[in-house]
Structure formats: structure tokens, C-alpha cells
């Protein structure tokens, strides 16, 4: 069983308790406009191109099987022709053309994960699955989890929740912590901004709590979508009904903008550079709740 991975990030300290290794899996069921891992969102192989690193050597042109690499004078990616095969990335030593897409067996992944075992033990850390939507690859995740549990490595997942309940069931016994995105409780709005409604997401979250699982809700706070008292209150009220202890708010930023350019995708521009921690705190002020609220930034 192989997993499809975009990246492995060691020494992460903001994705669950302790020092963690975050594994980004490819493919997602949502299309959030602000997504900061667009390369992981898409299921198909995609080529990324950073023209600033290109030295114009032309190596990519000679190896491209579909003629998608442009011309000597104008190296680029013709997205209509590009199949994402990555032949050009192979020979692009400048790393201007590259892919974030590899297949790893559970055991191969474990070799990477084990490297920081002593740090997990010292800090109560472990592995965190992220993405994309990690639970789309439920068999792979379940297999890695089994290995982690056998070796005493802590486990967590960052999930958008928009998968069938059976995907949760597959990992239910061995996932220690769910970092669970609730973006809005207004399903129409949710559909407009993420491509899907939020009923199943909320339902899955409720069922996780009923099963006694530890869930921290995460809310990306996005201008024009949910950056208003009403939207955030809706999320808080939902959280209260399922006895959530903690919600983390993640203010909008546009660090990912370049990645969209490298992918040949258009970046959604809400007309705001970023939200400050203070702005989000201000928005949350005066909302009474028993849930512990934390704003990053």
C-alpha cells in the first residue's frame, strides 16, 4: 500500500502537541478559495514552475514528450499540453520546475517518521497527517497509524471532515487527536467558497465527539467569507453543542500566493493583505462562550 505524498515536514511545533513530523497527503474533496496547499488539493500530478529560478538552460525543452516546455527564448509550461509527467523536473537542476508528488510505502514513510522518535518521546509529539485531505487515503493512513501505535508514536490528523464517515471509522481506534476544520455553519456560503456544503462535515465532527474522540476545532478566518461575528458565533454555538474544549482561529494570510503562480492557477484575491491577530480577537470579543478560544498569529 503506497501513499501519495506532497511533502514531509519535520520539527513542526504548531500541528498538535510537541515536536511533530507532518505528512502532507495529496488530493482533497474541497476547493477552498484560500487554500494554502494548492499542490496538495489537486489529485492529478501537477508541475510547478518558478520562473525566478530558471537559468534558461533549455534542458526541459529537449526532454518534454508533449512539447509543453515552451521555447528557448520563452521557457514556461503550456498547461494544456502538460501531463505533469515530470520529465522536465528531472533535468531542472535549478529546481525552477519541480513536482510535489511522490509515492511512498507505509514502511518507507515510517523510516522518515522514526528519525525523530527521541524528540517525540521528550515532548509528547508524533506524526500529524495533513494535506490535502489525508483521510481520502484511509487505507494508507490506517496502515501507518498501526505502525506508529506499535512503536508508541503519537498520532494526529488535520482534516476538513468532508469524507464519508467510514473513512473516519478506518482510523478511529488509533488516531489520538483530530485538528478539525469547521469553516462555516452556513451551508450555502460554505458551498460557494469551498465547493461543498457543511452538513456532512458537522455530522462527522459530532460523531467523533460521540465516539469520545479528542477534537480541536480549527477555523481559518477569511475576509468576506466568515470574518464576521455572525459566522464565528455560528461555529462557536456548534462547538458548544458537541462539547468542544478548544477552538483555534487561523487568521487569513497570502503566503501561498506564489504557489498558485507556479501551478499556473489563479489566486483568489479577497482584496486584503492579511488579517491580524488583533482583528480576529476584536471580532470575537463580546461573544460569550465556554469554549477556550485561541487566535494564532
Amino acid at each position, binding site marked *: 500500500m503506497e501513499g501519495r505524498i506532497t511533502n514531509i*515536514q*519535520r*520539527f*513542526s*511545533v*504548531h500541528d498538535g*502537541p*510537541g*515536536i511533530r513530523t507532518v505528512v502532507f497527503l495529496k488530493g482533497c474533496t474541497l476547493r477552498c478559495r484560500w487554500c494554502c496547499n494548492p499542490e496538495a488539493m489537486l489529485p492529478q500530478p501537477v508541475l510547478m514552475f518558478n520562473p525566478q529560478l530558471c*537559468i534558461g*538552460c533549455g*534542458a526541459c525543452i529537449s526532454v518534454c514528450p508533449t512539447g509543453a516546455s515552451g521555447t528557448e527564448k520563452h521557457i514556461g509550461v503550456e498547461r494544456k499540453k502538460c501531463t505533469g509527467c515530470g520529465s522536465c523536473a528531472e533535468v531542472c*537542476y*535549478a*529546481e525552477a520546475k519541480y513536482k510535489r508528488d511522490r509515492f511512498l510505502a507505509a514502511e518507507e514513510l515510517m523510516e522518515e517518521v522514526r*528519525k*525523530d522518535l*527521541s*524528540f517525540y518521546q*521528550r*515532548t509528547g*509529539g508524533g506524526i500529524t497527517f495533513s494535506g490535502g485531505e489525508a483521510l481520502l487515503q484511509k487505507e494508507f493512513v490506517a496502515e501507518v497509524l498501526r505502525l506508529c501505535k506499535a512503536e508508541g508514536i503519537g498520532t494526529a490528523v488535520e482534516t476538513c471532515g468532508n469524507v464519508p464517515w467510514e473513512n473516519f471509522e478506518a482510523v478511529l481506534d488509533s488516531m489520538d487527536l483530530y485538528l478539525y476544520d469547521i469553516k462555516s455553519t452556513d451551508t450555502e456560503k460554505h458551498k460557494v467558497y469551498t465547493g461543498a456544503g457543511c452538513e456532512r462535515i458537522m455530522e462527522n465532527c459530532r460523531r467523533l465527539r460521540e465516539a469520545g474522540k479528542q477534537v480541536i476545532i480549527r477555523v481559518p478566518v477569511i475576509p468576506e467569507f466568515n470574518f464576521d461575528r455572525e459566522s464565528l458565533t455560528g461555529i462557536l454555538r456548534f462547538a458548544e453543542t458537541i462539547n468542544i474544549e478548544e477552538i483555534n482561529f487561523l487568521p487569513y494570510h497570502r503566503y501561498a500566493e506564489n504557489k498558485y503562480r507556479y501551478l499556473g492557477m489563479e489566486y483568489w484575491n479577497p482584496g486584503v493583505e492579511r488579517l491580524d491577530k488583533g482583528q480576529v480577537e476584536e471580532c470575537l470579543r463580546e461573544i460569550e462562550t465556554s469554549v477556550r478560544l*485561541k487566535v*494564532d498569529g
Partner: protein
Amino acid sequence: MEDRITKLRNAFLQATRAADTERAVLVTESYKLNENRSEAMKKALALRHVLERMTIAIHDNELIVGCHAQKVRSTPLFPEYAAGWISKQMDDFATRPGDRFAITEEQKATLRECLKYWEGRALDERVASCIPKELDQVIGYGVVYNASYASKSPGHLVPDYMGLLGTGFEALIARCQEKLQNLDIEKDDYVEKREFYMSCAEAMGAVILYANRFANLAETMAEKEPDGKRKKELLQIASNCRNVPAKPASSYWEALQFLYFVQLAIQMEGNGLAISIGRMDQFLYPYYKADEEKGLLTHESALELMECLYLKLGEIDKISSNESTAVNTGPAHGQTITIGGVRADGSDITNEVSILVLEADRRIALAQPDIAVRIHAGTSQRLIDEVTKNVKMGLNKVKIYNDELITRAVRGIGVKEEDVYNFSFLGCSEPVIDGKTNSWGNSGHINLSKCLELALNDGSCMLTGVQMGPHTGDAAGFTSIEEVEAAYRAQVNYFTDVLVKYDRVLDMCHKMYLHLPFCSSVIQDCLETGEDFEQGGAEYNFSSPLGVGPITVGDSLMALKKFVFDEKKLSMQEMVEALRSDFAGKEPLRLMLKNRAPKYGNDIDEADQMSDFAVSVFCDALEGYRNARGGIFTAGIYYLTANVPNGKHTAATPNGRHAGEPLNDGGVSPTHGDDKMGATAIFKSAGKLCNVRAGHGSVLNQLLHPSIFKGEGCDRIFGEYMRSIVDCGVWETQFNVVTKEDLRRAQEHPDEYRGLVVRVAGYSAFFTALGKEVQDDIIDRTSLMEL
């Protein structure tokens, strides 16, 4: 912060670094007057002449007093060690790229007059005349060098504060008198020993006299002082200076004053660096505790005194040559305080003084003193939490040491079992036994990356074509990585041998010409055996040359192995040609080497093993040699900013580095930007090097983005990360928590950033005092953190 401390700190920051000619004039006078005396007595009499006559001052608000020049932040010169460079470079002092010092035309004229006397007499010229021609020629290639010991006193020592504070100099002078009484004229070393004891007594007497001058001054000032509170302070200062260092310290305040007089006197006697303080929480705690129990001291008042000491330590400065400034920029000079670690019985030492040392640094936040923390499995959480606070503030001052590894290393270099627990650190990373060691730390450099260049070019320099090293074969004919490794080893062996011979000659010259009666008085055993510090009088005597750029070598070997020998992407011939031409027209090749070969710092075994090899070859090369004081040579893998000038003289390397670019920094830090897996991977990689064999340690610089501390529990995680230095087997690490914006802005507006301290590979410096190139190098490192 106390008002007093703010005022003192502002006075410090507003003062200009300037040259002071008084010491130079007085030393010259004294030598002229005493030409008939022995070398030892000349030295002691010069110290007396200076301490007796130099202008002294007690500045407003000071509680700890003493000065090595007339004004705050003015700095004495040492023409008796080297004069030629001063006359050639004094016009550059105020304008050169790093470490500028104001100097007036009048001062220059005074200096020129003094310097005439030293022509042909200064230490460096005497040393130069003793260097065999063949040796001198190879040294001239710059693959190895030791300019420092050819023109400086060794420095790199920790006085026996534990003993001194409890004894006082009067008792030690009496000890010298007793020894003098009992000398046997029938013995052949009678004169030598007599001169030695007389010189020590003279030197200690001079320091007592100097302290008494401060006592008198304080009394005079007290008489005129209208403010009752300050009057009382001045009278206490007078009483302190009357008592110490003549007699044992009778309070915490006196202990600090004693310490400062000793630090100053060592730095007035010689121009050596890294005069360190040792295990302060061990030797100072009894005084703290006694005063606290008597109700004489509170945490706050103890802290204020510690802060006053820090500001005085900050005043101690050195003017170095342009060349030496390039290698070692900044007013840090390695005065290091060590805290933490274990007592003789193995228990954790953490006490209130350990905490004060860190707390004072958070409030003073200047380049000096350096702080070294020994971490072991039993280190108290309180100490870890306090250290985290300092790192988090971006002070970048604290160096974390692996107590367990270094205990083994110290044993490995021959320290007796009863002393092993009692090590502290010098300026960079060298462990010494407090009060018992003449370490000759940082005794020369060998450019390991240049050795690889020569190995790939049959011993000839790729930049100049000069045959610098032995013929090790035409690399185009090498058919395996082992042949490359063998050629590298041969070059390292050859140049290490040259450096060792050179160091031995310097050592013998110091024996002949350089007597250090005051140092000999503050290091155990010298007074017992009647041997000067530089004659081998200390119990432990080391020499530690430094290997520069081992990671550049390791990553280069890795790239050669992968692309030339394993994958055969190019021939050895093509590789060597590309290096000779600095990859001209071969940018894709350079990028392949840079981006597609595994690199040290990412926890990849095969890459880390190559760097381990690069270090261990140097350790092997030093095996078996003895220095002229009867001690051994051991390796150090730390080198301040020497990666920059050494890189400048090194051709392109197979790791994809261009000719002239810096080598890897610090010692065992990854090449900037090559470490892509984060701090845990860096620790794991560094832990795979043969750290225990490089007995004078290594430096691992790490950059931390401040965001690492954001969020609940992050401090705790960071604390555990520091503790894991023991699990990973890394010698030392230190952190820069900065942003590139900070530093860019500091470059543009240095005035707003006078207080900004950065760690430059082994020591801390004011960023704004560094040369542009070093600044750029640091910004380069910093920006990579933000990708």
C-alpha cells in the same frame, strides 16, 4: 531595569570605541628604564609602571570599579607584542570595515614615537626571526596560519577564582617570598626561579596598588559627594578596593570586585583573547549565600551588582589588525561565564547565581560576557526555563553544551579523574579545567576545504597555480572516491604537520620571550613549581588548531561520490576542469551538484558520514604530536568568522560552491540553505560527527525564527529540544533568533541598532560593528529561515 543600570548602559552605548595611547607610552617608558632586567621582571615592572601611573576614574553610578583605559570604551594598545602593524594601520582604525576605533592625529604622533622603540624588539619580530625559512614559505601560502600567537599572548585561560577569592594576593605574595627564601643557589635554575618569584610578587603587588588607587579615589570623591546615598556607596567601594584583591573577599560585592580587578590585570598584562571567568555559580555561590543569610543581600541587589559587573566586562576591548579583524570581528573577545553542569559528586549545580547570570544578561544584553550552559540529564528545569527566556529574547548569547559528551572528551585529552567534572569554557567551545589549564585554544587554522582543492589538483592551487602541497596524483586518473579521500588525507596530514611545527616554534618563542607573571599568579601550580604559565607551569597544557570548512569538504566528497563514481554523470576530468574555471558556462552542472546531492544537516546518513570523515581525518592528523609545554594537540572545529576569508582563498568546490564564497560557518553548521529538514535533523546530523574526538569542541550555529516560540507549550518544547543535545551527542549549539528585516534595517540604520547583538559563529558581537561582508553573510543565513 534599575535607573542606575539604564544610565550606565546608556553611557556605555553612547561612548565611542576609541584608541588610548597611555598604556603604550607607559609600557615603553618602563622597558626603556629596565633594559638590564630579566624578561620576567621587565614584564612585571611594566605592569607596575602602568597600573601605578595610568589615569583612573570612577564613573557616575558605578558599583564595580576599574578601567583599562582613560574613558569608557577606549582601548589600550600593546606595542611590545607587535608594533609594525600599528604604524602601518593606525590610519585605518577609524575607517576600516569592521571594528572601528577613533584616533586623533595627536595620538598617532605619540604612538609613532613609542613604536620606534619597538622596531626590532616587539614579540612578533623576535618570533619571526626564529621561524625557519622553509616553514615560513609554506605558512605564506595561507592554507595554515597562526598570526594570533605570533603576535599575542596566549590568553584563553580561566583564573583559579575558587582559590583566589578565598586567599587574596597578600598571602600569595608571602608564598612567593617564602619560596624565594628557600631557593637553593646550588641549583642550576636558581636565577630563573628567583626572577620568576620576584616577578610574580611584583605583578600581584602592582594589582594591589592599583586597587588602592581606586580606594583613595573613592574616598576623595566621597568627601565631595553631596548625595548621601552615593557617598555611602563610594565609601563602600573604597572599603572593597582596600580589601580586595589584597585579602580574601569578605562579601558577594567584594568577590565581584576582586574578579574584575583580576580580569582587568590579565588584560593589561597581555593582549590575549578569551580571558574567561569559569564556573561562576560554583565559586560565587558561597559569598551570595553568606550575604543573603546575613540579610546583606537580596536577589535584586545581587542582580544589580552582577549587571554592574557585566557592563564593566563589556568595556574590555581590543584593537586588532585589519587581517585579524576579518577573521574575528566584533568586541566580544570571549570572556565567558560558565553555569550549570555537575558538582564533584555528580549532582546538578544549579543555584541562585546560575539564575542571576542569565537574568543579568536579559537586562544588560550586550556582546560581553558570553554565557555557556552545561546541560546534562539532571539539569534542573528551572535553569532550562531561564535559558529559554534568554534565547527567546533574541539575545543569541547563550551557548548550550552537552555535559555528558564533553565529560568523556575531557577525560580523553588526559584530564585527571578528580578534575574531570570541573570544566568550563573559553571564548568559543574549548573546555578547560578552571584555574589549571594553559589551553592555547585557537592556536592556528587549517583550511580543510583548501586541502580538498589541492587533493583534486595534485597539490597545486587552482586559483594561482602555485604548488602548495605535496603531489598526490592527477585527480583525473582517480577511479574511486577512496582515492580522492586518500589524497585529501595526505594534504591534511602535510599541512597539519606544518601547522604543528609552526605552533611548536611559536610555543618555544613564547617560552623564551614571553613571561606572564600575573597569569602565572592566578593559575594553580605555577607558583608551586616555580614555572611561568608560558613555560608549562600549568597542570594541563594543550594546543588546539582549528579545522575550517569540514562540512564543505564532506558535502563535496558526497557530490563527487554520487555523480562521478556512482552515477558517472561526469568524469573526474570534467569535474576538475569545472572547478578550475569556477563552473564558467556550466551553471546546470553547478546546480546539479548543489541541489541534487545529499547534504549534511538533513539527517541523511551517507552525507553525514562524509562530513564525519572530513573531521576525523583532521583529528587523526593531530594524533601523537606534543607541544613545547609537554601537552598534546587536539582539534577544535569552531572558527568565528574565519569561514569568510578562508573561503575567499578557496577555489570552487564540488558541493556547488563558487570560488571565493564562504565555507560552512561556525564549525559544524550546515552550509547556508542546504539544511532543509529543520532543527531536529540538524541535531541528528551533527551528532553523527566524531565530536568526542575533537577535544576542544565544535560550534553548531542555528537560526531560529521567533515564530518557534509562538503558541502554548512552545517554551517547554524548546527546552526539551535543548536537552536533547545530550541524546544526540552534539558538542555545542547556539541560536540566532532574528528576522532578515531586522538585520537589513540594521545595516541601513546602524544608529538605531547599536545594541543589537548577533552570534557570529562562536561569539556574540554587535551587528553594527561587523564588516559589511560578515553582515551580508548573516543576513543570508537569516533569510533562509523565512522561506
